[in-house]
């Protein structure tokens, strides 16, 4: 489903060129649960951003469903992105001015879905992540765990095939972190592909495969027996 061929990403700042990723080769099949680990600054987030089509690679190929999208324009990427990928961030990234249900609805707003159907989907997904009783609340009235559940709901409400999670448990205590991981596992079991960046070895354990990055390159790949 996803295939990176010799992919690099460099950042140009004044006179220094920094390579965040260099010569990365990764292949991810549909339905996989992949964890990406590595020390700070090794290029985890850059990799996730490129996988999520929020950023373009400087060099190399990104094949998505056998289509090379590495040089696609933002407009084209946005279209592929909204059909296929859901995001979960470490800092939740909920819009403060919108209520819980409005935040979740946001993910459907740009999909040409009739209002009634949208409302129905939002209610369904809120039930699924157990946040329905907070539907009218504003993000700052929720705990971190609740906020992240809203973020998960937002990521999956559009039935996206892939979820990219950037340290989804990084801002949560262990109990709430556990909750979110269980939720991701459940989604994976229903067939959603999950790619997650994490610092926590324990949470990486939920994944079938772990990719270790170091200095912008893939060091090792561990596959856990099913």
């Amino acid at each position, binding site marked *: 489903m996803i295939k990176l061929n010799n992919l690099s990403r460099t950042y140009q700042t004044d006179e220094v060129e920094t390579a965040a990723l260099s010569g990365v080769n990764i292949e991810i099949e549909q339905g996989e649960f992949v964890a990406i680990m590595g020390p700070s600054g090794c290029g985890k987030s850059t990799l996730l*951003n490129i996988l*999520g089509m*929020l*950023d*373009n690679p400087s060099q190399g190929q990104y094949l998505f469903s056998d289509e090379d999208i590495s040089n696609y324009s*933002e*407009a084209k990427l*946005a*279209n592929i*992105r*909204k059909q296929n990928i859901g*995001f979960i*961030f470490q*800092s939740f*990234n909920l*819009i403060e*001015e919108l209520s819980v249900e409005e935040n979740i609805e*946001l*993910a459907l*707003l*740009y*999909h040409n879905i009739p209002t009634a159907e949208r409302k129905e989907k939002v209610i369904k997904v809120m039930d699924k992540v157990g946040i329905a009783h907070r539907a009218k609340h504003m993000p700052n009235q929720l705990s971190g765990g609740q906020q992240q559940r809203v973020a998960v709901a*937002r990521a999956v409400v*559009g039935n996206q095939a892939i979820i990219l999670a950037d340290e989804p448990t990084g801002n949560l205590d262990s109990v709430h972190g556990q909750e979110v991981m269980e939720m991701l596992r459940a989604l994976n079991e229903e067939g959603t592909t999950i790619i997650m960046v994490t610092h926590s070895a324990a949470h990486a354990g939920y994944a079938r495969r772990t990719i270790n990055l170091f200095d912008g390159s893939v060091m090792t790949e561990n596959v856990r027996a099913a």
Partner: protein
Amino acid sequence: MFKNYFKIAMRNLVNNRLYSAINIFGLAVGLGACLLLFLFINDETHFDQFWTDADKIYRAESLIQSPGRGPYGQGFTSGKTRSTLLNYFPQEIESATRFHQEYPIIQVGDKVFEEPLYLTDADTADIFDIEVLKGDLKQTLSDNRSIALSKELAIKYYGNIDVLGQVLTIAQNNSKHDYRVGAVYKKLPHNTVISFNALIKINEDDFKDQPWMFDNWASPNTVTYFKLKPNVDISAINSRLVSLVEDNVSVPEYWADQFSEATEFISFSTLPISKIYLSYAGVSNNITIFGSIALLILVIACINFTNLSIAKSTRRAREVAMRKVVGASRKQLIVQFLGETIVIAFIALIVGVALVELALPAYNNFLGRELQIGYRDPFTIVIMLALVLFAGIVGGIYPALILSSFRPAAILKTNKAITASSGFTFSNLLVIFQFIVSISLIICAVVMYAQREHAANMELGFDKDHIVILHGVGRETLIPRQQTIREQLKKLPNINSATYIHMFPATGASRTGTITVTGDKNLTKHIVAFKDIDADYQNTFNVKLLAGRIFNKEIGRDKMPTNEQWENDPGPFESNIIINELAIKQLGLGDKPADALGKILEFPDSKKLYATVVGVFSNINYRTTREAQQPELYMQNTAGAGFLAVRFNGSPIAVEKILKDYWQENITDVPFVRTFVDELVQGQFRGEQRMSFMLAVASSIAVFVACMGLFGLASFTAERRTKEIGLRKVMGANVSDIVKLLVWQFSKPVLIASVAASLLSFFLMAKWLDDFPYRIELWVIIPICFAASLCATLMAWLTIGGNAFKVARARPVKALRTE
């Protein structure tokens, strides 16, 4: 401490270049516009203050009640006023002088000119300190046959100003005299109500055959100025003006049956010379309007200040919190922030002054003035500093209060800036206000322009584009030749017809009086306009004969009694007249034109005149489109006509040449002077033209400044919403979704403002249009409102769209990274 404030202020200015540029430039444009309007208002309010004795010089005013006509006089007084004042107030009045304008023919060598000339008294040289370049003004004005010329006129006539002793000939009042140039003076500045090209002494002996000119209380033909003695208060004069009338004036013989006391028909008052200009129609009105516009533009610029400061306050929150933590009081913070806005306002003033200097030549050209910034004038300096303080305080007070009210704990603990949500609705209100003002100004400018176009291009009923008026045909030497001249002119190519007229069309001039209709039991007095015409009037002014006949030269009753008959014959007189359509209804003469024929109108003078209606003319708008048409009575009377109206076809330029060639070949003692009627019509609306132009400029400035503010606000908002925008994109929003989101946010206030401004301007303009009898239809204002609103909305979209597009097109990862 101030050093620290200053440092922070300067660093903020430099770090927030966009913000600083918008603030400074927007405010500079606002302050510049204010300064330009201030210069104009300052000039308007300082007329005639440069005279050494300005505070002692007054103009005598008279108000004369006349039967059959509104009160008249105002700035004019009878020629007897001067001597009466001097005799009645010997202790109070030091000197007094009169001015009377004539348009004589002046012959210099073999050249002739028609020139406005002022007749005056010798005291003029004492009252007004006129700078004399050559000769002696007082002596010149004491001599019956001397003339004082302005430098400009001396150069026009002789090419230089060494002209003392030169002799020129002046033909006026049926007589011709030689005058010796006795003085040359420097032209008076523009800011005075008195101005004259040339002065000669009033020699009352020259007017023996026109006794009404200087010797009739009911005939105000001169302007009288007087100067008080030192330490005399004007109230000493004002309190005795009624008794002056009682002691000196008697009711004219011909009004003896109307008034028993002189005080019933005439009254006097005084006006300081420095107030005269302000008393002119429209002047103080203009000052109020321009002053308000200046203030509005300044407020719009100040609003930018306020709004950008509020938008930026989130960035300053941490600084405020830290200052509070280390012990700054709220008052100190308010002082700091106000100080910053005042510094910005001061920089803006410097830029604004530079802009004014750039704009002044064009501005002066437009106004016909020589305005300049009085850098050494204390009043101007005070005004400029006041503008800076006003802009700094009005623009800075609200953000200063908001910023200084932040509670440090909230900011430092949450580790993020708070968004002052109430501040944003307040910002929206301010933006709405800015656009209400801008859009209203646009609407007013367009409506005024439309009304001017409508009134100036209105069908007057006589094809104004093809009539030219020749002056000078009433001069003594030409009167016997009038019929010949007319017949010769009619034979020239492109000339259709020509009629002698007493009053210009399209100038508002009109002679009115009262009549009664024979057989009317109530003896209702109708006010009507009288017009002396000849047989060619109908052809020349394209008038249609609706009933009856036109005048016939051969029928005696078709002519009015001559002055001689009127003087010597006891009457009653009988005569035929023609009326216009409007008169039929107003006088109640019937329903259709034919009904009026044979009806008799009475002139209720001391000597009776019975006038029989023999014809009815269609209505034409002989006066101006500023006034409603009047019921008119036409009488055949060619004596005393001063002008010849000539109807032509083809190009005015070609016709002018034909007429001029004819004139120069046949008439040598009177210069060729002509006026095209369409020029007169255009000139009537110069006031409206100027006003709509000023409004157009002011509205452009207002829209520009408001859009600058909007641009700044949109940039800050986009920045504030960066994360939200990034997220929306991650959720699948495309570029156009985001642009729509941002543009819509700022369209709302502009749309609300459009509605409010349309309503406001509609009522304002409907009221303004009320003063015009011939006005554009009120519904025309509605599309103008739509167009102005659309224009402002498009401007706003253009302003914020570019920025929104830039923000929307950025890769979402950038937005998310600003976390």
